[in-house]
C-alpha cells in the first residue's frame, strides 16, 4: 500500500469506529462527554508514562482509556449529588483533570518530549511513518492495525448489545424494569467511547475524534428517526467526510485532520439547509405557509362576523379593513390578494364579500380547530 492509501484507510477506520459509538453518545445527550474524554486522557497518558517509563508502549493507551472511564465516573458522581447540572459537571471535571496532566508534564516530565499541542492537534499525515514490523517484515502502519482492532471491538459491542443499547437509550426506566442493567450499559458504552477516542486520538488528534464522534451521527439524526438507518447513515457520512477531506487537504496542502473536520461541517450545513421536509429551507417555508394559511382563515372569519352588519362598510371596506386586522399594510394586501385569487371572496362596492366557497372553507377549518359539531 502506498502512503496515500494508508492514510485514507486509517481515516476511514477512524470515521467508522467513531460514528458507531457516536450514534449512542448523541442519542443519550452526552456529546460533550467525548470532548471531555479527549482532554482528560492526557492525564491518563502522563500517569501511565510515569509507571511504564516508555513513551511508545501500547500500555499508555490503556492508561488513557482508564482515565476516560474515570472521567465519566467522576461526572456521574457529581451529577448524582444534584448540586450541579450535567453540563456544569462535565465542565468542572475535565479542565481539572487536564490541568493536573499539564502540571505533571511541566513539573516532572520536562526532559521527555510530550508535546501537549501535538497530542491535542494530531496529524494524520505522520501516521504512515510509524510502522508495525513483525519478524523484520514491514506489514503496514501501526495505527492501521490499532484502528482495525478498535473497529472490530465497536462492531462486536454494538452487535452483541444492540437490543440493550437501544432500550436503555430510549427508555431507561423500562430497561431497568425488564432487568437489563442501565448502569452496565452506560459504563461499558463510555469505556468503549473512551478506548475508541484514545486510539483514534493517537492516530488523528483530539479534534478529529470529536468531529467524527459527534458530526456524522448528528447529520444522520437530521435525516432519519430510525436507529438502524441512523447507524448506517452516520457511517456513510463519516466515510464521505474522511475521503473528501483527504483530497481537499492534499489539494491545498493543509492539515488532513482539520480538513476532514471542516468537511464534516460542510456536509452538515448542506444537509441541515437543504434536506426536504426537515431542512432549514423546508421548515422556514412551511412556517411561512402556516402563517399565511392562518391569516387567510382569520380574514375570512372577520368577513363572516361583520357581513351584513351596520358597520360592514367600515369593517370590510377595502380601504379601511386594514385598521381592523392590525396587520402590516403589505401583509394585509397580500392576504387579500390571496383570498381573491382563490375565489374565497369578491369585491362589491369597495366592500369585501365572502363567496360560498370561502364560507365553506373557513367554517370547515373553524370546526376543525374548535372541534364543534
Amino acid at each position: 500500500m502506498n502512503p496515500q492509501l494508508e492514510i485514507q484507510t486509517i481515516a476511514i477506520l477512524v470515521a467508522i469506529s467513531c460514528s458507531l459509538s457516536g450514534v449512542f453518545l448523541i442519542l443519550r445527550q452526552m456529546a460533550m462527554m467525548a470532548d471531555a474524554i479527549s482532554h482528560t486522557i492526557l492525564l491518563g497518558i502522563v500517569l501511565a508514562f510515569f509507571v511504564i517509563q516508555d513513551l511508545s508502549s501500547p500500555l499508555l493507551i490503556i492508561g488513557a482509556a482508564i482515565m476516560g472511564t474515570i472521567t465519566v465516573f467522576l461526572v456521574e458522581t457529581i451529577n448524582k449529588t444534584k448540586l450541579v447540572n450535567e453540563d456544569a459537571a462535565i465542565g468542572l471535571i475535565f479542565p481539572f483533570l487536564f490541568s493536573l496532566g499539564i502540571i505533571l508534564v511541566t513539573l516532572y516530565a520536562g526532559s521527555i518530549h510530550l508535546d501537549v499541542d501535538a497530542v491535542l492537534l494530531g496529524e494524520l499525515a505522520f501516521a504512515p511513518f510509524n510502522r508495525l514490523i513483525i519478524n523484520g517484515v514491514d506489514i503496514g502502519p501501526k495505527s492501521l492495525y490499532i484502528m482495525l482492532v478498535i473497529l472490530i471491538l465497536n462492531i462486536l459491542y454494538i452487535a452483541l448489545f444492540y437490543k440493550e443499547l437501544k432500550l436503555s437509550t430510549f427508555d431507561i426506566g423500562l430497561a431497568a424494569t425488564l432487568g437489563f442493567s442501565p448502569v452496565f450499559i452506560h459504563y461499558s458504552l463510555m469505556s468503549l467511547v473512551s478506548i475508541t477516542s484514545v486510539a483514534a486520538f493517537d492516530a488523528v488528534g483530539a479534534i478529529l475524534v470529536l468531529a467524527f464522534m459527534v458530526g456524522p451521527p448528528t447529520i444522520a439524526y437530521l435525516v432519519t428517526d430510525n436507529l438502524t438507518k441512523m447507524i448506517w447513515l452516520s457511517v456513510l457520512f463519516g466515510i464521505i467526510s474522511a475521503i473528501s477531506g483527504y483530497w481537499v487537504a492534499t489539494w491545498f496542502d493543509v492539515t488532513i485532520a482539520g480538513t476532514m473536520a471542516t468537511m464534516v461541517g460542510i456536509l452538515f450545513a448542506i444537509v441541515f439547509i437543504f434536506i426536504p421536509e426537515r431542512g432549514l429551507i423546508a421548515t422556514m417555508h412551511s412556517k411561512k405557509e402556516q402563517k399565511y394559511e392562518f391569516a387567510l382563515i382569520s380574514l375570512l372569519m372577520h368577513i363572516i362576523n361583520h357581513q351584513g352588519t351596520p358597520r360592514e362598510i367600515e369593517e370590510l371596506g377595502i380601504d379601511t379593513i386594514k385598521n381592523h386586522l392590525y396587520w402590516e399594510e403589505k401583509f394585509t394586501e397580500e392576504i387579500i390578494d390571496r383570498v381573491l385569487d382563490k375565489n374565497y371572496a369578491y369585491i362589491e362596492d369597495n366592500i369585501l364579500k365572502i363567496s360560498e366557497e370561502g364560507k365553506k372553507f373557513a367554517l370547515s377549518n373553524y370546526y376543525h380547530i374548535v372541534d364543534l359539531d
Partner: protein
Amino acid sequence: MALSELFTDYTLRTVALGSIFLGIVSGTLGTYAVLRKQSLIGDMVSHAALPGICLSFLIIGSKNTEWLLLGAFLAGWIATIIINIIHTHSKIKYDSALGTVLAVFFGFGLVLLTYIQKIPNANQAGLENFLFGQVSTILQRDVIFMGIVAVFTILPVILFWKEFKLLSFDHDFAAIIGFSTNKLDLLLTTLMVIAVIAGLQSVGVVLMSAMLIAPAVSARQWTDKLSVMIVLSSIFGAVSGVVGTLISSSIPKMPTGPIIVVVVTIIAFISMLFAPNRGLIWKKVRDYYNKKELSTHMVLNNLYILAKNHEDPFHPHDLETICLYNNGLRLSKRMMKKELNKLKISGLAKEYEEGNWAITPEGFKKMEEIHFEGGGDME
C-alpha cells in the same frame, strides 16, 4: 512567598490585578452560563475562536492583538449564533450542536493555521500560542484591557438586571409578558463571548472554560439569591486567580494557568461538600437528625394507637406489644427502649413497673394535634 510581595513585586501585582478583573468578568457571566445550562459555551467559544484569529491574521498580515481579538470574537459569536439556529430550527439537541460546531470550527482553524505556516511571513510564529495563553505573560496593557472589558460587560448586566434574571429563571414567562427574549438572549450570549475571548488571550482555552464554570458552581452552593451568587462567584474567581499566581511563583516551573484551574476546582469541591443547606455533609447531618426525630415520633404513634384501642387510654403495655405496631420501622427492643426513654424525658410517655409503658396525657394531646394537622386519624 510572602503575601506582602503581592503589593511590592511589580510583575506579581500586574498578574494579580489581571486575575481579579478576569475573576469578576468570568464570575459574573459564568453565573448566567451555569444557570442557563450553557456551561460548556466557554469551551466551545474558546475553540471556535481559532479560525477568527487566523482569518484576521491573514487579512491584516500582522499579529496585532486588537485585530486578532476582534477576529476571535467574531468567530466565537458566529459559532454561538449557528448553534442557536441549529437548536431552534431542528430537533438536534443542544449538546450535539455544541460539539459539532466546536469541532468543525476548530478543525477549520487548524486548516487556516497550516495554510498560514506555509506562507513566507516571519510574523506568523507563535500565533497558536494566542489560543493556549500564558498567565505569567500578562502585561500592564493586558490589565488595562481587562479592566475596560470588565466595565463594558458588567454595565449591561446591571442595566438589564431584571431582564436577565427573568430570562435565566423563567424564559417562557419573560416571552409571554412581552420582553423580546430573542434580543436579550443575543445580548447575554454576546457578553459571554466577549468575556471568554478577553480571558482567552491571557489564560488559554482550558482555563477559560474552568473560570466560567467553577466559581459559579461554587457560589451556587452558598446562596439562592442571584445577586449574592454573582458577587461570590466573582470573589471566588478573583481569589483563585491570586492564589494560583502565588503558588506558581513560589514553586519553580509550576505553570500558572493549570494551577489556577486546580485551585478554582478545589474551591468548587469544598463548596459542594461544606456549604450550609446544600452541601453534602450538611445534608447528611440533617438527614441523620430527621431520621432520629422521625423514629421517636413513630414510637409515640405506636403508643397512641394502643391508647386509642383501649378503654383506658393510659393502660401500660410491654415492649413486645409496642414493637408489634412497627409502621415499617423495624426497631430492635434495645432501640425501642432508647426511644421510649427519650419520650419519658420529654414527658410524653411514662414507664410503669416490669418495663411496661404508656402514653401520658401530654403525649396523647400532641399526637391528636399531629394527626389533626395531617388531616387523618389512625383508627
